[in-house]
C-alpha cells in the first residue's frame, strides 16, 4: 500500500482517505487508529458499532482477554489491547492504575485511601476503581506533569 501525504490550505478540511480494493481487517485497523488519534474510538455494543469520544470514556478495562470502554452510561468492547490503548491515549490523560485498567484522569472526582496501601478513585459517574499500590508512583508523577 502506497502512502501519500498532501498538504492543504486552511480553506480545506483535513481528511485521511484510504483507497482500497477490499475493506480488510488491516484497513479497519488503520481506520480505527486514525479515529483514535482524532479523539474517538470504535466500540461495539449489542452487535452495533459506535464512535465513542475519548473524552467521554471514564475508564478502560481488560477482562478475559477482551477490552472494554466504560463511559458514564455504557460499556463498549474494542479490538484494541490495553497496552496499545495505554500508549495511544497517553496524551489524552489516560493512565494505567492497575494491571487490567486505564483511567481517564479528567474523570476522577476524588481519591480515597483503600485497604492496605491502595487507593480508590471515585469517578464523576459514581463508579469506584482501585488504584493498585504498584501504580501510585506513576499516578503521582502524572499529576505533577512528569
Amino acid at each position, binding site marked *: 500500500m502506497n502512502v501519500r501525504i498532501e498538504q492543504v490550505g486552511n480553506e480545506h478540511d483535513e481528511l485521511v482517505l484510504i483507497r482500497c480494493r477490499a475493506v480488510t481487517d488491516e484497513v479497519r485497523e488503520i481506520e480505527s487508529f486514525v479515529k483514535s488519534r482524532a479523539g474517538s474510538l470504535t466500540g461495539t455494543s449489542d452487535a452495533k458499532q459506535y464512535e465513542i469520544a475519548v473524552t467521554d470514556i471514564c475508564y478502560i478495562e481488560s477482562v478475559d482477554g477482551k477490552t472494554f470502554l466504560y463511559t458514564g452510561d455504557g460499556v463498549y468492547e474494542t479490538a484494541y489491547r490495553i497496552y496499545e490503548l495505554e500508549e495511544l491515549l497517553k496524551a489524552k*490523560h489516560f493512565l494505567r492504575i*492497575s*494491571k487490567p485498567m486505564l483511567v481517564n*484522569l*479528567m474523570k*476522577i472526582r*476524588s*481519591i*480515597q*485511601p*483503600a*485497604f*492496605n*496501601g*491502595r*487507593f480508590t478513585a471515585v469517578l464523576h459517574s459514581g463508579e469506584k476503581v*482501585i488504584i*493498585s*499500590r*504498584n501504580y501510585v508512583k506513576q*499516578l*503521582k508523577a*502524572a*499529576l*505533577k*506533569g512528569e
Partner: protein
Amino acid sequence: MEFKRFLINKLILFFMLTTLITVAVVLTGSAFDPEARFGYKEMLIPIEYAALCMLPTLVTWSKRELSAKAMLLRKAVMLVLIEGVILLIAFTSSVIDTSRIEVVLAIAGSVFVIFVLANLFVWLKDAAEAKKLNRELEAFQKHHA
C-alpha cells in the same frame, strides 16, 4: 507487590509494634503487677515480641494484588496467629502469671488493641497521602480543562 517493598513495610511495622508493645507492657504491668522490677535483659522483651509478631505477618504476602476481601481475610488469620504466638509465650513464661484470667485477657486485649492501632496508623498515613493526591488532581484538572 515487590518483595523488597513488602520487607520495608514490615520493618516500619516492626518499629511501630516495638513502641506499642512497650506501652502495652507498661500499662498492663502497672495494673496487674505494679511492684515488679526488671533488669536490662527484660528491656529487650518488646523487641523480641515485635520480632515474633512479624512472623505471622508473612501471611499477607502475595505477588499479585489481593482484593480487599482477600486481604481482610488474611489480616484476620494474621491476628489469630499473633494472638496464638503471644499467648504461647505468656503461658510458657515464668514471669507472667497466667493463672489469673484477667492477666490472660489483658494480654489478648493488648494484642488486639495494638493490631487495630497499627492498622489505624497505616490508614492515617494513606489518608494524608490521598489528601495530597486530591490537591494535585484538582490542579491537574484545572490546568488541562
